[in-house]
Structures are given as structure tokens and as C-alpha cells.
């Protein structure tokens, strides 16, 4: 995940608009790319996107606020999305939640002090046959146990610490 400080958003967004198109229908693609690269879409970037696509910055930010996987405030390098919907819930997702919370020392909705992890709930992610499940950024982890959840976190911690 790249840092946002000092980025020339005009240039970055221009390249993305070139890739996706300079029309409003390119908005989601551009926002998703920015989200992937920088972990959020900061207001300055939003303004550039709006100017590039000829829409109001307000509508860029209201779109961001609609989608759970887009945000305008930075989150952790790894966003852990634990599924909270029924099949995962019945497969003891609460225990996984507790293991994650304990392991990271944060509650859901929070980010660790080192900026590495954010814990979030998400709704049914289509892994009900292998519940409980979670996403870490865009990687899927299924059939979780408290132990496996802790291990997964440890793996990302190693990776993130290196990166």
C-alpha cells in the first residue's frame, strides 16, 4: 500500500482516467484502483477524480460513502473483514471475532496502533459452505478456527513487517 503524502493526484488520476475512461461510468473502476493502491481515497484525490470525469466532488464522495469497500479515511494496511451473516454466525464467528480482537488488541471498527490491521465485519461473502470465513484485503480465508485465524494474522504481520 502506497503512502499518500506528497502524491501528485492530478497525475495519478489522469493515468487512471486514461485507463478507465473520462466519463462518469469509469468512477467505480478508478476509485477501486485508488483504494487498492493507497488503502483509501483521500479528499484531494476525490477532487481530481471529479474534475477528470466532469462530475461534482460531492458525488464522488457520496459514492465512496455508499460502498463498504471504499473509504476516504485511511485504514490499516490489512483490512480484516469477518463475515457476520447467518451461516458464519452459526459456525461460531463470535469465537473467531474474539480471537482476532485479542490477537490484535483492538475491537471491530478499530485499527492497530502500528497501522497494520483494521478489523471490520462484513455481510455474507459467499463462503457459507466453508464458514466461518473472512477476507483480508481481497484474499479469502475459510473454515476458520480461532487458531487458524491467529496464524493468518501472524502471516500478514510477517509480510507487512517486511514490506
Amino acid at each position, binding site marked *: 500500500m502506497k503512502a499518500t503524502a506528497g502524491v501528485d493526484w492530478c497525475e495519478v488520476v489522469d493515468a487512471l482516467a486514461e485507463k478507465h475512461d473520462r466519463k462518469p461510468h469509469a468512477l467505480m473502476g478508478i476509485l477501486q484502483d485508488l483504494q487498492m493502491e493507497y488503502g483509501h481515497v483521500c479528499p484531494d484525490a476525490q477532487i481530481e477524480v471529479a474534475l477528470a470525469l466532469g462530475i461534482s*466532488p*460531492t*458525488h464522488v*464522495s*457520496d459514492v465512496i460513502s455508499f460502498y463498504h469497500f471504499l473509504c476516504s479515511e485511511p485504514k490499516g494496511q490489512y483490512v480484516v473483514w469477518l463475515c457476520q451473516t447467518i451461516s458464519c454466525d452459526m459456525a461460531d464467528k463470535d469465537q473467531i471475532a474474539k480471537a482476532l480482537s485479542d490477537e490484535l488488541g483492538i475491537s471491530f471498527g478499530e485499527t492497530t496502533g502500528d497501522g497494520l490491521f483494521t478489523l471490520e465485519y462484513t455481510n455474507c461473502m459467499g463462503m457459507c459452505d466453508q464458514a466461518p470465513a473472512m477476507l483480508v484485503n481481497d484474499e479469502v480465508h475459510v473454515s476458520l478456527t480461532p487458531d487458524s485465524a491467529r496464524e493468518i494474522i501472524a502471516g500478514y504481520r510477517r509480510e507487512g513487517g517486511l514490506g
Partner: protein
Amino acid sequence: MNEQVREIGTQIKVTINGEEYTARRGSTVLEICEDNGIPIPTLCAHDDLKPAGICRICVVDINGGWNLETACTWEVHDPDTVITTHSPRIRRARRAILELLLAEHCGECYTCIRGGNCELEDLAEIYGVRDLRFEREDPRFEPDTSSVSIYRDMDKCIQCRRCVRACDELQAVGALGVFGRGPESRVDTFEGMSFDEAVCTNCGQCVAHCPTGALQEIDHTRAVWAAIEDPEKHVVVQTAPAIRAAIGEEFGLPPGTSVTGRMTTALRDLGFDRVFDTNFAADLTILEEGTELLLRLQAALVEGKDVKLPQITSCSPGWIKYIELFYPDLVDHLSTCKSPQQMFGALMKSFYAEEQGIDPEKMVTVSLMPCTAKKFEAQRPEMADSGHQDVDYVLTTREMAQMIKEAGIPFTQLKDSQYDEPFGDASGAALIFGATGGVMEAALRTAYEIVTGREVPFENLNITATRGFEGFKTGSIVLEDVLDEWSFLEGVELKFGIAHGLANAHEVMERLRRGEMDDVHFIEIMACPGGCLGGGGQPIPTTDVIRQARANAIYSEDEGLPIRKSHENPHVNYLYEHYLTDGPCGHRSHELLHTEYTPRGFRLKK
């Protein structure tokens, strides 16, 4: 899904509540019901806006479907459509919706600016809501008092999105959006900015379209009461052209009732020391702005200078802020003339104060405007050329009506009275400033006569090409047999354009940027749909039907006035003879009556 479109407009029979009605194919159930006097409650619908179908209060039964459909969105194409507008399940659904809205609507109706004119309150009355089945929600928001013109109290918001749609569809500003989703959603600005920071033109169309008190003007009535009641203060009020055709609505008079004389009486009764007509300054504007145009034309045609044409009018502060925000590189097209309000303000604390021997410090200048952007304009730092803030307070039509009611003045029964001198009798040309196209018509009446020495060649001086509510109108007038000093204009076809509503202004500016306006000389732009008569400070509701009625009132009053041309206003001529002695666009007038602009907005960062 059916082959409907071709047939729109033909008459079909529909059944509503068991009765047969004829309807225009393609009209909505709501339109049909309204035409036939069948009541349907609405909240998110507004005649100015595209249907959204989101409040759901207007649900009706179509052909006995399992679910209900919204009357405001359902277009009737099928001749056999059977519509039911009241039944137990319809009543229950509407009532549920209403109670859900009321339970999260925080605020006391009796302290609300919209008390008595709130669509939510009206429905609560109709539905006899005496208690709520749902627990009341706690307030979620802090009122936003940051703006100098618009006040937000989003705990009163019912999320009908009329403000968002007005700002998008009518004004192409996009200052407002819906943030979050589900029960957490809210109407807000970019990144939750306060209204003074938001990219907003202060036009007030959001306010004018809000069904509740969630959006309102920033209150100046208290300050004005204090001024009026202070014996030390000389309080003068100027009234914009569009007020007299609308303020009667606040007192139950039908739209289009002209109440000029009653209004001046009411203002005097209220305690204003002098009641002046902004139209005086509108006439002045015509001379200044017309001269500016002729000078630009001269510079371009004779001196070959690179002056910006078309010249664009600068009377509408919402439009001024719009161009500053969205076309900061094109502000040189604007006339440098201040708006009539500000010309008047500058003269009050200079010319008028000197003539009358009043200490400007002891003067309070109030203007009565159809507009919320005027509140912003009055507080622009550069609007102090008299050495004081030129205009102290701006009251909207609605605020003034409230004050008149509060004072207990029987408005409708009042006797007519005149405006005070020395700014009385203005021209009909100034009066029509209140309607879109009016500035252009007034300017043409004067400019044509200055250049040719003859009256404009139209019956009764009515330049109909400038009238009507088409979004962008163009026209031209050929200058022939001109006076010697204007010989460079001989045979020139003066081309003009007129736009109202910022969405139309946006189109015009895009075309201008593409070079498609190069042959146009003069463009009038007004921020609000219909011009000032549809301003953000006018009585609520305002719709096209009401705009038309107000326009009719304005145009017929113009026809009845003895003076129809700005350059024939004797007070204006007196002013040039005795005060602005170097004439229109002279040095003195430049100091007092002209201004400069401030590029701003997101685009500046580029």
C-alpha cells in the same frame, strides 16, 4: 416495457376509485389525480424536479398488484389501468411512513421557520397523528450556522432529496449529496464541509425546495427589529423588483397579485425610516452596464482591443459565485457592474447620506430581496465602497412577510403608498429585472435608443424575444441609422443570449468555452429558474405555474408605468448631473458602482 412511447399524449380512459376519468397517456397517476381533485399525499415530489419515488408516501394500488406503486412515478400507458388511491392497506402504509419520518424528525414545530408551511406538518395534521407508535430518535446533528446565507438543521431532514436534486438538476452545482446508506444515510456536503466552506453558490434553491425546516435562510429579522427599534438609527429599506409580485402569496393572495403599494405601506408601518425601490439602482445598472457594453464593443470593433465578449450580466450573486467557482478563468466576461442591491447600498451611505446630512454610521441599510445569495453578496469584503458595509442586512421575501405578520399589520387591507424620494418612480425597465430576460430587455430599450436615437422597434416596447422560461434564449437586433458618435455600430447585428437557472448557465459557459458564443455580444444570466421571481428567498412553494403568474404581474405592471426606459429615470439623471458627474462608467461610478471578482473553488487547485 410496452410500445408506449409513440402514443404518449393521446387520451385514454382510466378508472380511479371506481370512477372513470380521461387522462393524457403517459401522465403520472399523481398528475391525473391532481387534475381531478383526488388528494394524494406527497413529500419527495416537486413540480420542478424529476420524480424520485423515494419518500413512498404517495403509494397507490395499480391494478390490484400485491404491492403498491408510487403515484408520482407511475406513468399510465395502459387504457385499462385501474387505480385505487385509498384502501385500508394504503392508509396503513402511508401512516407507517409518516410516523417513521416523524419519529426521527427532531425539532419543535412552533420554533420552526416553516411552522405553518411545512409539508410534513401538513401531513401529520391530515393523518391526525396525535402520538407515535415508534420511540423517538435522538438528534444526530448539530445545526450548521457557518454560512452567511443558509442554515442547516438536518435533524429536521426527511431525506426527500429535493435539495440534492434542485442543486443538481436546476443548478448543476452538486453541492449536496447523500452520504452513507440505510438508516445512517444523511444529506451532506463534500466531505461533510460546513456550508460556508462548501462549493455552493448560496442561491437558496435547496431551501426553496425543502419541504421542511431542515434548510432555511440565515435569520436577519432579529437584527432588523433591533435596528428599527433603535431611535438613534436611520433605517432605510430597498425592495427588489421581484418582491412585489410575490410577497402577497405569504398573506394568502393568489400568485401573481402585484402588491407594490401595500408593501411600501407595510414597510413604513413596520418602522423603516425610508422605503426605497431597488429599481432605481436597476435603472442605474442599465446605464452603467449598457455603457460598459458599448465601450467594450467600441474597444473591440474600433480599437481592435482584446476585450472579453460576450459581456455577461452581473446582477445575480448566485451566478457570480457560480462563475467564480466553476469558471474562474472566465470572470473577465462579467460586467464589472455591481448588482442593483449593491449599487444602491453604496449610494445610500454616500450620496444619500451626504444629501440628507445623515451620519452613515447611524444608518442601517436593509434590503428586501427574493434571494439568499444576496445575504452573501452583502457581506463580501469588497462591498464597502461607501467606507462602510454598504448593505447591512438582507431580508428574504419570507422573512419580511413574517415580520409584517409579527407586527400585526393587516397586509391585505392596507392602502397603497408610494416609494420615498429621492429614489421613487423607477422605470418599468427596472421592474422587469425581476423576470428572466428582463435585464436584457431593459438594456436593449436603452442601448438601442442611445445608439440610434429611436425607441426599440417593438410594439409597446415589449421585446417578446427576451421573455418566457425557455432555458436559454437567443435573439438579435440590428442597429441601423445610428447616431454619428456610434457610427462604428452601423449595421451591426447585436446578438444576445438569456439563461436562467445555473444548469442552463452551465450549458452556456461550456458553449462559450468551446468558442460557440464568439458571435454573441451580451448574455444575461440569472442563477435562479425564472430569474429573481423564482429566487431562493421567495415564498414557498415556487413552481413554473407560480413563476408564470409572478412574471405576468411584473410585465403588466411595467406596461402601466409612465416611464418604461431606464435612461428616462429622472433620479438617475439627477444623480449623474450632481454626483457621478463624470457619467456612466466614469471614475466616480467606477469607485462606487463597479467591482471585481474572486476566482475560487476546486478548479483553482489545478
